């Protein structure tokens, strides 16, 4: 194991490989340790395996070989049901294109994010409202996605990912579809969540954003070529 000082590990990858049909090796042996409370950027050229790595971190995809541990659970040993339970409790995802349900209000979109935690509808709505307040959208609860700006949509998506207070937040280019002002707002939110204890891993193409992060993992051709703090 890499080092034993500091907070507990949140994520551990050990020699993780991911092969796709057709001989594409998206991850070619990645080992990394991310501790609770870290704010980590993943950078690298297009096609270097960033999304693939994030999916492995978030247990959305199983690697071809190697081990992934999230919050101490070895992902490879878990059934689909347990893996799903792990995601619902530990991991929040934010996507470049938001993935909000059209025609559903902001508060319903966020409340639906808690559906699989087993909370009742009243509790889900209450927490959804809180999460929207937290991202500064208390005044947009009833708005539907098409009535929101790009930045607002991404903040709704962040509220959805964090309404259940997961210890881990994974974001794949959350500012990729936003202008720099809206992007800065989203980054500020992620920093705030990190300050409050959430482990945040964010993929970004933006050099300024990347340079401002305390830790950057640089990928190329499915390998970690740099891990700087």
């Amino acid at each position, binding site marked *: 194991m890499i080092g034993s000082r500091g907070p507990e590990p949140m994520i551990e990858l050990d020699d993780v490989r991911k092969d796709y049909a057709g001989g594409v090796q998206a991850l070619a042996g990645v080992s990394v340790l991310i501790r609770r409370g870290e704010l980590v950027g993943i950078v690298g050229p297009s096609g270097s395996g960033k999304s693939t790595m994030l*999916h492995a971190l*978030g247990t*959305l*995809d199983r690697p071809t070989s190697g081990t992934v541990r999230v*919050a*101490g*659970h070895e992902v490879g040993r*878990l059934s*689909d*049901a*347990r893996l*799903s*339970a*792990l*995601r*619902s*409790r530990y*991991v929040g*995802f934010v*996507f470049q294109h938001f*993935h909000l*349900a*059209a*025609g559903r209000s902001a508060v319903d979109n966020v409340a*639906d*994010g808690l*559906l*699989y*935690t*087993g909370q*009742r*509808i009243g509790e889900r709505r209450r927490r959804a409202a809180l999460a929207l307040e937290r991202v500064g959208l208390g005044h947009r609860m009833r708005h539907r996605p098409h009535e929101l700006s790009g930045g607002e949509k991404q903040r709704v998506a962040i509220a*959805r990912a964090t309404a259940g207070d997961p210890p881990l937040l994974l974001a794949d280019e959350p500012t990729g579809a936003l202008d720099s002002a809206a992007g800065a707002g989203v980054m500020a939110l992620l920093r705030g969540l990190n300050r409050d204890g959430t482990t945040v891993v964010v993929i970004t193409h933006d050099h300024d954003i990347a340079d401002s992060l305390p830790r950057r993992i640089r990928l190329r051709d499915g390998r970690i070529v740099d891990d700087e703090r």
Partner: protein
Amino acid sequence: MSGPTRDRLRPARLAVPDVLRTGAVGLRTRPVRALLSALGIAIGISAMVAVVGISSSSRADLDAQLETLGTNLLTAENGSTMFGDEASMPLAAEAMVDRIAPVDEVTAVGRIPDAGVYRTSKIPVAETNGLVTYAARAGLLDATGTEVASGTWLNDATAHYPAVVLGSLAAERLGIGSAGPDTQVVIDGRRFTVIGVLEPAELTPELDSAALVGWPVARDELGFDGHPTTLYARADEDHVEAVQSVLAATANPEAPNEVDVAQPSDALEAQQAADQALTSLLLGVGAVALLVGGIGVANTMVISVLERRAEIGLRRSLGATRGQVRTQFLTESLLLSLLGGVAGAAIGATVTLGYATTQSWETVVPAWTVLAGLGATVAIGGLAGLYPAIRASRLSPTEALAAP
């Protein structure tokens, strides 16, 4: 926080309202499509419910009719001789049949040959309108269960006078709405006063096109020979078959094979049986419509799964298990077809009500039909949704998320 090793990681079960709410997402976001595919199911179910409902209502009406008319009426009619001429029952035929112990009541009519019925004497003799004149015994109405629509039936007095009672069809063909002292018809060149018009005779439709006159006046005025041509006998309910087997030989002991014996209620039942065959055919058509509706639902579900891959990926990232995704789409399919089934059952019942009302039947929609219809709907929804639901649950979350 408890240590990771003690964390059992059990996925939460969704409450039933949440399952329904999630299953209804597709219906809410694409209502027109949902409505159209539910319509297919609705057409099938409504066709089947209406077919069974109408047939049951008609059956119930027939049962009620037979209940009042009775199934114990037997007729013995002149057949033909071995030379092809019309046979003739003896004068004493009625009295002999009356001596059969389980016969409660016997009555007769005698056809008067070549006695046409006309509105006036100016109408050519050849235009008979298909009407026949009978000499009728006073007991005919009671025995055949026929009602008087207007006026009265023949009695001992009027049987001696030129008075006639018309069957419903006869009155209609002659253009006579109701009986009255001024209403007359011409029979065999003589004027007869129409003292009564009958309701349609359900069991003995031959009386509908008849002009019925008294036995004595027929002999005196119309040259009637007094031989009955049809006997009507009411038998004891428990001995109908026994009476039927001896009726011909009793009515005409010399030539039993020249008598045709029948049970008129059989004809009604036979007609019903023919309707039943049509019902089965229509039911088959309804089943095909239902099948097509089911395929429509399956098609909608397959498309729904294809279009909603991103949503499926998102739900998986939020912690939905494969089972929960499967349940979501299965629920959607069930809701879709149940929507059609409930609407179809309601439409089918309404159609039955409407049709039965126009026929003045009592409306009967058997509960089993509606239950079977809804059961079929659930089965179809389940089958139609199974494959799409399994496909949805097998989608890899990352590929689903990558979908546009």
